[in-house]
């Protein structure tokens, strides 16, 4: 079921090549709908091996290292940041040497405060060292952005690691630490989308504590807070009848974590899914029928109407919250554009998280 989230990012990753050509064009992506012929297949029963699986899986079509952080600066003001590295194989087959390598890398970074939202994107060819990922010690980089481990980095928890990225008018550097191992999503890391049989390999580290410096317009401030990393790879494409999704990752003040999303389809229906991760690291799926996601308020950004406020309820867990964005204008005007920004929520539970809206 978190495979639907795969779709979201598959879309982003798949679009990378097209975004390079400066045309974000949803139909162009349909080419990916044909087949994963020649690419490795996602099958149940994989045994994850770390640190190897922290590294790239070039036999699969798409893959990403995706991190969001909800932070508070030294003045007590809330802020958020995003760091994403996408890998996309232009074609299947053995890895070419040097420039003949068929991997293309794309990265997004953003910083969001109540009063501003800054973002940047980078592109690179694989095989030449401009971008890539190594498993041990972890090094995921593109240009001068990187997520980097060291000899001290524990393979199970992927901790500690450092993170940095920059743009014309912002930059950040964080240290991420977690005291619990990564969480395998779905069925032991095999994450299946029930209705269509698409799947991905998927694990997360939702327990990161983050600390570092964030600078907007050359004004650095110390920040600290919580971060969530997703690792996912697959060869399966997005279905053509999917129009977009609304996705949330929530850090509950109890220490539990919750991931929720709603996949919208052309026929107007939508399919919510959820995954509850206890503070002990155990996961529990939430049935779609048990999730109520209701948009409460929209905002006009970049010529679109975006539902940035939500009412969310899971009756079986006596869970009912109202979500508000830190900055309703957290628009990612990148080659492939979408809304992604920090939120806070109150109700039966309180906390912070990240919201992503695509396809609007």
């Amino acid at each position, binding site marked *: 079921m978190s495979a639907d989230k795969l779709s979201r990012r598959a879309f982003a990753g798949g679009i990378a*090549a097209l975004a*390079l*050509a*400066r*045309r974000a064009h949803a139909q162009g992506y349909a080419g990916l709908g044909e087949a994963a012929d020649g690419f490795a297949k996602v099958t149940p029963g994989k045994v994850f091996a770390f640190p190897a699986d922290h590294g790239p899986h070039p036999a699969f079509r798409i893959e990403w290292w995706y991190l969001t952080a909800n932070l508070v600066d030294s003045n007590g003001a809330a802020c958020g940041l995003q760091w994403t590295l996408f890998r996309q194989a*232009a*074609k299947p087959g053995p890895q*070419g040497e*040097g*420039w*003949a390598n*068929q991997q*293309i890398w794309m990265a997004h970074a953003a910083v969001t405060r109540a009063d501003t939202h800054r973002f*940047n994107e980078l*592109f*690179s*060819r694989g095989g*030449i*060292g*401009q971008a890539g990922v190594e498993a041990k010690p972890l090094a995921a*980089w593109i*240009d*001068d952005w990187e997520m980097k481990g060291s000899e001290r980095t524990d393979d199970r928890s992927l901790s500690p690691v450092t993170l940095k990225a*920059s*743009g*014309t008018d912002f*930059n950040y550097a964080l240290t991420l630490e977690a005291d619990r191992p990564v969480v395998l999503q779905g069925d032991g890391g095999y994450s299946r989308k029930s209705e269509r049989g698409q799947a991905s390999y998927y694990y997360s580290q939702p327990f990161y504590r983050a600390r570092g410096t964030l600078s907007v317009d050359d004004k650095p401030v110390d920040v600290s807070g919580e971060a969530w990393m997703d690792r996912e790879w697959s060869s399966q494409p997005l279905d053509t009848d999917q129009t977009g999704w609304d996705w949330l990752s929530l850090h509950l003040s109890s220490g539990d974590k919750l991931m929720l999303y709603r996949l919208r389809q052309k026929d107007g229906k939508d399919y919510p899914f959820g995954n509850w991760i206890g503070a002990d690291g155990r996961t529990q799926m939430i049935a779609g029928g048990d999730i109520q996601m209701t948009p409460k308020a929209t905002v006009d950004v970049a010529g679109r109407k975006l539902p940035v406020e939500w009412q969310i309820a899971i009756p079986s867990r006596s869970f009912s919250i109202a979500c508000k964005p830190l900055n309703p204008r957290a628009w990612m005007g990148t080659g492939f554009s979408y809304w992604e920004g920090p939120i806070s929520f109150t109700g039966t539970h309180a906390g912070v998280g990240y919201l992503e809206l695509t396809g609007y």
Partner: protein
Amino acid sequence: MRRALWVLAVLLSHWRRHRMQFATLLIGLIAATALWSGVQAINQQARSAYDRAAATFGGVRTATLVASNAATFPQDLFIKLRRAGWPVSPVLEGRVQINGRAMRLLGIEPVTLPADVGNAPRLGAADLSSFVAAPGQTLVAQETLNDLHEQDGATPSISSGAKLPPLHVQPQLVPDVLVVDIGVAQRLLNKPDQLSRLLIGEAKGKPAQLASVVGDQLQRVEPTAETELERLTDSFHLNLTAFGLLSFFVGLFIVNSAVGLAFEQRLPMLRTLRACGASARLVNTVLVVELVALALVAGLIGLVCGYFIAAALLPDVAASLRGLYGAQIPGQLTLKPEWWLAGIGISVAGALVAAATSLIKAVRMPVLATAQPYAWQQRQRRWLILQSVAACAVLAVALLLLHYGQSLIAGFGVLAALMFGAALILPAFLEILLLAGQHFARGPLALWFWADSRQQLSGLSLALMALLLALAVNVGVSTMVETFSRTFVGWLDGRLAADVYISAADNAQGTAIRNWLKDRSEVQAILPGGRAETQVQGQPVELLGLPDHALYRERWPLLENAPRAWTQLVPGNAAFISEQLSRRLNVRVGDVIEVPAPGGTWELDIVGIYADYGNPKGQLAVNVAALIRQFPQTPQTRIGLIVPRDRIPGLIAALQKQFALDDRAVADQATVKAESIRIFKRTFAVTSALNAFTLGVAGIALLTSLLTLANSRLPQLAPLWAIGITRPRLAAIELTKTLSVALFTSLLAVPLGLLVAWCLIAIVNVKAFGWRLPFHVFPLQLVELVTVALIASLLAALLPVLRLARMQPASLVKVFANER
């Protein structure tokens, strides 16, 4: 409205009775629009070609990083810079041969290619993944595909035997350029992990200091506001524009005189219309409407003519630019809608400006005013003084520019100011001449002759100014072209020292040919040659390998040299430098120049400077053996031979048979020379064509001015006829007068033209091309031009004079009745 139409009909009826006048008005407008818009079309076409070129040059408007002391640098530096936050994109450039045809191969990296590289064609939009992923694509212009006789999708081989990725037409590219992915370029050029330069995109973030990342291995080259090539081609276009503008003004002179005449002749008509109750505003509005309508029609015809002029000249322009600067522009004309609009606009605006005086007169005309003959003398004196003051001011500007100006634009400024000033001062000059004539004249008829000539001056002066300018430009340009031509041919004689030239397909064939030649009895000497390319102080420099042979010592001309220059060249630590490069780098004989070579810096003593006309690249000539030692990659494919003249054809035939060499690969000196001279002649074909056009337009201007004057002067001539001077006599006097004024003007044009030639050779040439030519005067050519001008004047004057000679006495009598 109805009333306006009637007024228009009345005004137009004038043209039916004066068809010749109508024709001159239209010819003036058409000529002005045609020449101006033709030149604009050429310029526009060429500019869009440069924009295409700019993109393939890797963005001449983009800052770049190049190796400090070599032609290429390791790719590793690119990665280091990217990892340090530098938004750079790699480019590898080289030359390859396909079927014996040299092409520029450009390797780019579309993923990092900055979006804002000059006016870069959107290479990224041409299906990125098929460009990047194997087998990739070779992007070429349609022209290149045609030249190679290949189809889209073909995979021709280069001389090394490697196959290009499938050819794919990219309309925005310039001819003779192959664009491939950087990885493909490294493989084809056999430069693994090497790059020529890095384009610097828009910085997002704060990259580290360059030196802290790559040390001194790379140096930053700022995007100069104008690159060498842009500066050169700009000069060419400035030249064309100057011609176009000149033609345009000459055309306006014609319109001015035609409209002026029509106005004078329609004065009674206007008076009658006003007397019949048409308001001044209505009459004036209709006059303007009539003029605009005529301008629109003439403008359209002019544009069509302009299109044909441009289409006819464009191949020559393309050849000129290719020959002079190596800039490629396609030989086909495509025009934007703006061009048509601008052409019509300039035609209408020009007509209104040319007719302004007449229109203002019509507006101010009192209803009952009679057509007073001009108070010539007073008006003219004031006008002459004012114009002469203006002329002096303009000439002063020319002097100032000559003294303080440094740029090419200043050079052209000197030219423009000189010509404009000379044109303005011409009437005063003629006035003085005529005054002197009048002073020495005896007898009433002679006195009248001179006085009347003076009186005619203001009416004729515009036409004479046009004639002066056209002639001066002709003298100037033809002197320069002739000078250039002689110098070039002499230089070519020295340059093409060997009797037969061979260009082998590759090193192996080169060796085979040399071995084969050793056994041929007719070959007296085998002279190997070679070329390599590098960069000195950020400038592309060509290294030319010269063999050590007496022939070169005798025939290779040096402008300056150290003692025993040729002997010093042999050990390989000395070089000759081309004149252009010596000016650019400010290097003299005796200086030392550091040349980056694959094995390290090559220090060369400059022992000579030689002329290298027509080469946009800087060049250093060194000993060929030393060149191959320093640049082991140099293709050893160029061979010169010394062969007795009568045995050349036999040897060439044998060579072609033995090695399957085509005509391009083996050539005798005479053919090469003829080819070079042909290319050279074409480079000035445009100039000559425009020159002829301008002279033609000036002739038309003279004709129409005389026609205009002829009618308005009847009141002056009628009394002479009345006192008994016969019509043929009157006609002869008129003819003498016109020809003498034209002769004065032509004679004045000669020194002015020589001054123009001097400006072109000593100022414009040096700034634009980097070399200076010896200044020659060709008296025969001057006599020829003056004769042509006089014949043109004679033809122009003949028509009105013949009319006068044949005029019915009754018409002359009518003059008394109507005008006096």
